């Protein structure tokens, strides 16, 4: 659907800030999260996990566990088949190791028992005989010929020679003549960077309740970003028809991409099938760290040429991402994103995805983009320092705009990067004075956004209220935004609309809540559903008035004759038409099913002020401002929340968060005490400036906003720190020991 043609649509609901619909439930503890599901006769399940980074499973003896009182079943990989589909097989093998354990924390067996305590005790009785193998957890080491091979036979056809079998994917993007471009530069910088793997850090651990009946039906309640994805994957693993497995998504305590996955659900289903009883499984925090997906870690080289007045003449990047023990495609997103903010004549990115003995990577907000853009924006900042140029002027001089051939191929339509940069330049933050040991950094950010498969049903209730049914778990305020768009279109108050997220048997297929897609595509489908319902309501009014349907229009929540020639009738409100719906033809509803496209890319700019303690190397964020193009901010509170949340996560990524592995290949910091995410006292108020450059692909101009804000903080912080301490950092996180070492080493 294209942007509505009205030159300046006046919104009555969209853009307001009504109270969030899930607020009362969440603050009173009434909200039902994954671990809150219960069922009569429910068993409790626990998973036995590998203590080794890489080992052959020679045997598993569960007889002692099964003999324990209260233990009802044990499952291992022997209880599952071998799926033909490679994606499904990887999911299953990650849920339960088959033949080999591939990382510390990989599941090898699971127990269902009458209590959680009995299940935990039973794990200790399962004997696993391992043959330990050499392991590799570093991306550069894993790429070398002769490195321990995590899985064989997974290399795609376009990976060149000279690498180990751990390299699964190669990609290359860009255009133009690099040699000619670099020849025009007054200076060329080549720098190498590393970023650590970081976890999404959602508050709610993965949890589910599975109930398989003896006649082959099953219900599954779980916390997920995509109940249909869970349904499809689990049905295939379990050999079930989709219609027989109903998946209901719980309220979700954070996802950020990490719950676009399946980790425990097939295991709970298998245990339920084996015992004939409902089985509940809840991960501990340690399990979340050890066995669910963090983002990739990376090793990158960036080369950029620039003239002394700040024009980039050529740019290239080599990106090496490790995504754990299974093939992933994340480097392709990094390769496409790295230089997306720039209008370049000559640009090239080269990327390699690599397997290591670490947990399987999961998506994390704008997967692949933050680390690549961190490296690029760091080099651009170093140029600004070298030539004495204003960092925003340099970005403005080189900024991508409508008509720019993007670094990943397509030509940009209307985009908001320049407006975002200009807003940052005009903001008082940019010129505020700084004190000793303080520095200011900035970075651009980019994300694609996308649409995807979406179904919405909008029911007009006979009392004049509206029920919207959609199929995407609400991870960022989508229920409020969807209700606002329905109210806007129908011309009724927001509080007359309630939006719910349905289970997999109650509405048609919906893609996962990811890619910043929901406000865009579910919103689009809601608007169209409302328009379809309006068509029905206009037809009902026409029947009542005895005039032609085409002679009825919808304005301000009511059907009206389109003009004097149509007849002289008082408008009929939505409530009046709904009240007689039974008498005029039956229930009134609107539906829309679509594979939405036209999501529209998103850009952001972040400004960060930091102060570094010269004695400890600790960095304090003093001030932070996010500028982002939202297309149209449907519910500005939530848009600001996304911008602030992304910034907070990115600050953690930049300063402290990292997966730390020992020489034994085991994760050393699987808990929030040792894996330090920023807490409220670590952060200043994060200011936000929303720009609204309408997306031509949405009737209201909406763009996704959820992912872009995690992209700029890495470089914004690194640039700020580098300016504060006078030494350029090339590795994240910039934890106090690393920063202190760099400061002490600068001479």
């Amino acid at each position, binding site marked *: 659907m294209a942007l509505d043609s009205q030159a300046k649509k006046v919104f009555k609901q969209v853009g307001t800030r009504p109270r969030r619909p899930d607020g009362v439930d969440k603050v009173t503890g009434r909200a039902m999260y994954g671990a809150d599901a219960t069922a009569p006769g429910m068993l409790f399940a626990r998973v036995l996990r590998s203590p080794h980074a890489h080992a052959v499973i020679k045997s598993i003896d569960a007889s002692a566990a099964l003999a324990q009182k209260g233990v009802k079943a044990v499952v291992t990989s022997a209880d599952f088949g071998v799926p033909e589909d490679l994606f499904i097989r990887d999911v299953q093998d990650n849920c339960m190791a088959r033949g080999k354990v591939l990382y510390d924390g990989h599941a090898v067996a699971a127990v269902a028992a009458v209590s959680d305590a009995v299940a935990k005790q039973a794990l200790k009785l399962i004997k696993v005989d391992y043959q330990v193998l050499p392991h590799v957890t570093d991306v550069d080491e894993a790429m070398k010929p002769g490195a321990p091979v995590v899985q064989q036979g997974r290399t*795609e056809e376009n990976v060149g020679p000279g690498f180990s079998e751990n390299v699964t994917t190669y*990609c290359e993007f860009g255009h133009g003549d690099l040699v000619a471009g670099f020849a025009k530069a007054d200076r060329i910088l080549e720098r190498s960077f590393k970023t650590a793997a970081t976890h999404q850090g959602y508050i709610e651990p993965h949890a589910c309740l599975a109930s398989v009946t003896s006649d082959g039906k099953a219900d599954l309640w779980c916390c997920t970003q995509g109940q249909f994805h869970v349904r499809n994957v689990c049905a295939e693993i379990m050999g079930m028809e989709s219609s027989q497995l109903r998946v209901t998504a719980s309220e979700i305590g954070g996802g950020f991409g990490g719950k676009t996955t399946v980790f425990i659900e097939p295991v709970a289903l298998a245990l339920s099938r084996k015992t004939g009883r409902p089985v509940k499984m809840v991960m501990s925090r340690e399990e979340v760290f050890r066995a669910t997906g963090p983002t990739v870690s990376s090793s990158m080289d960036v080369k950029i040429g620039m003239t002394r007045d700040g024009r980039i003449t050529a740019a290239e990047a080599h990106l090496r991402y490790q995504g754990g023990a299974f093939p992933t*495609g994340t480097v392709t997103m990094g390769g496409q994103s790295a230089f997306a903010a720039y209008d370049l004549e000559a640009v090239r990115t080269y990327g390699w995805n690599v397997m290591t003995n670490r947990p399987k990577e999961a998506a994390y907000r704008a997967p692949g983009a933050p680390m690549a853009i961190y490296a690029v924006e760091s080099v651009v900042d170093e140029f600004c320092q070298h030539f004495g140029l204003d960092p925003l002027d340099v970005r403005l001089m080189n900024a991508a705009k409508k008509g720019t051939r993007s670094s990943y191929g397509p*030509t940009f339509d209307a985009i908001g990067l320049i407006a975002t940069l200009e807003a940052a330049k005009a903001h008082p933050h940019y010129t505020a004075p700084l004190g000793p040991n303080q520095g200011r950094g900035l970075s651009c950010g980019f*994300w*694609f956004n*996308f649409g995807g498969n979406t179904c919405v049903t909008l029911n007009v209730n006979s009392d004049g209220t509206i029920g919207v049914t959609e199929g995407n778990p609400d991870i960022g305020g989508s229920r409020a935004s969807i209700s606002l768009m329905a109210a806007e279109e129908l011309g009724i108050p927001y509080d007359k609309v309630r939006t719910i997220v349905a289970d997999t048997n109650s509405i048609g297929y919906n893609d996962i809540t*990811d890619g*910043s*897609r929901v406000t865009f595509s579910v919103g689009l489908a809601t608007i169209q559903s409302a328009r379809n319902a309006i068509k029905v309501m206009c037809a009902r009014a026409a029947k009542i008035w005895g005039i032609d349907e085409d002679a009825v229009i919808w304005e301000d929540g009511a059907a009206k004759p389109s003009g004097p020639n149509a007849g002289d009738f008082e408008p009929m409100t939505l409530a009046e038409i709904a009240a007689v719906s039974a008498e005029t033809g039956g229930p009134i509803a609107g539906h829309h099913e679509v594979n939405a496209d036209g999501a529209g890319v998103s850009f952001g700019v972040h400004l960060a002020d930091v102060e570094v303690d010269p004695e400890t190397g600790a960095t304090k964020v003093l001030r932070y401002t996010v500028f982002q193009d939202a297309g149209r901010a449907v519910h500005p509170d939530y848009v600001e929340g996304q911008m602030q949340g992304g910034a907070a996560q990115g600050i953690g990524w930049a300063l402290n968060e990292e997966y730390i592995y020992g020489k034994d290949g085991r994760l050393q910091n699987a808990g929030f005490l040792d894996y330090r995410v920023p807490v409220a006292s670590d952060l200043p108020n994060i200011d936000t400036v929303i720009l609204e450059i309408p997306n031509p692909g949405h009737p209201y101009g909406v763009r996704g906003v959820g992912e872009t804000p995690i992209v700029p903080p890495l470089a914004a912080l690194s640039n700020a720190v580098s300016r504060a301490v006078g030494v350029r950092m090339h590795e994240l996180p910039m934890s106090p020991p690393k920063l202190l070492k760099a400061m002490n080493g600068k001479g």
Partner: protein
Amino acid sequence: MVHVKIWGSLRHATEGKDEVEVEAANFRQLLDQLSTKYPGLRPQIERGVSLALDGRIYREAWFTEIGPESEVVLMPYMTGG
């Protein structure tokens, strides 16, 4: 004829070309033609691709019409968080 820009690492399947020509009126025909004319592209197309038409990115949508002057770019399949 539709001119299709491909990403660099697929050049091994297109005789080194960054841009190829196929006869197609919509995305499905385009993907079929690419697979037929350049069999080396088939594994990637089967793994998943996106297509950008005049700057707008599509993940599926077989029957999206392609105009004679349209800019068409083959891209990896998009995923997000």
